[in-house]
């Protein structure tokens, strides 16, 4: 078989597996009493499948890399939807600015120091 065709099949198999796990995740999510995204259940199931070697990493590696490389495109329509909320942005610009800087720096500072501290203890 030509190499290109094999490549196509490898990608197709990866995407089909990813969609399969998403489907199973969604079915489980629909049965749960709480709101929990089916996509994350799919993520955890696929991770479980990989660690138990039921799913070989080669089956999904190429497709996943492709997906993650272009993932950012998928968020563009959502962000463009912001133009419906200009009033909200103007009204809340103090909160938004504060949240971006304060929250991010506080998280980096606290997590950085906590992990650095705990990591030293583990090493000893």
């Amino acid at each position: 078989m030509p190499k290109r065709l094999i490549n196509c099949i490898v990608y197709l198999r990866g995407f089909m597996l990813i969609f399969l796990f998403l489907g199973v995740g969604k079915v489980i999510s629909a049965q749960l009493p709480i709101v929990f995204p089916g996509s994350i259940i799919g993520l955890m199931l696929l991770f479980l499948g990989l660690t138990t070697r039921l799913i070989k990493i080669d089956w999904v590696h190429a497709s996943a890399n492709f997906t993650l490389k272009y993932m950012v495109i998928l968020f563009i329509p959502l962000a463009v939807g912001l133009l419906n909320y200009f009033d909200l942005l103007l009204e809340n610009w103090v909160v938004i600015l504060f949240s971006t800087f304060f929250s991010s720096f506080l998280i980096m500072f606290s997590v950085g120091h906590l992990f650095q501290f705990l990591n030293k203890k583990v090493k000893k």
Partner: protein
Amino acid sequence: MFFYLALPLTLAIFFLCKALFVRKPWPLFHPFLVSVSVLIVLHLLFNLDYQQYESGTKILTRLLEPAVVALAIPLFLQVHLIKQKLGIILISCLLSVVIAFSVAFYILPLLGADLVTSASLAGQSITTAIAVEVSRSLGGILSLTAVMVTFAGLLGATVGRLFLLRVGVKDKQAVGLAIGCASHALGTAKLLEDCQEEGAFSSLALIVCAILSALLMPVFYVILF
């Protein structure tokens, strides 16, 4: 008419912006930020109908779900690191989720945010796909969440490492974990350019934080509000 143009237009603009970013890799030229700005300006200039744009690009938004499932692969590739330090990674990421939730719901209201705004901003530090799900389950505005996530990501990607060094965090694994917690995939991508070890811990943090947020934030919300 615009319905059929929406998807090709979005892709064309994105790849043009990407080409620009390769030549001029300034953080403000991040392809996502520029594409979104260009599209918003086009909408305003030509009075385009966002409803049509939204339905024309629905496929992209739908594909977010399988993209989240695909995050299992980088997580699996880090599995040896996780096993070694699972406990302290979990504690650190848990702290991050608690801080994000507390700031959004206890400090932002002091500045005048209402419950919907707080809900939209609570997930700003986790990867967009899951931030959007968290925002949805808390009753936030998805568009606002998507943009806030980008702001947080750009901040960590640009000044994150510098800030951490300034405040005395020198452990490479700690730097990675901190930036992954605060700035998800954008921060991780930046770290991966310079250091594999930082990048590995950063991608680990982004996944663990995302899962913890999706599991815990709706529960916190139901208990506290």
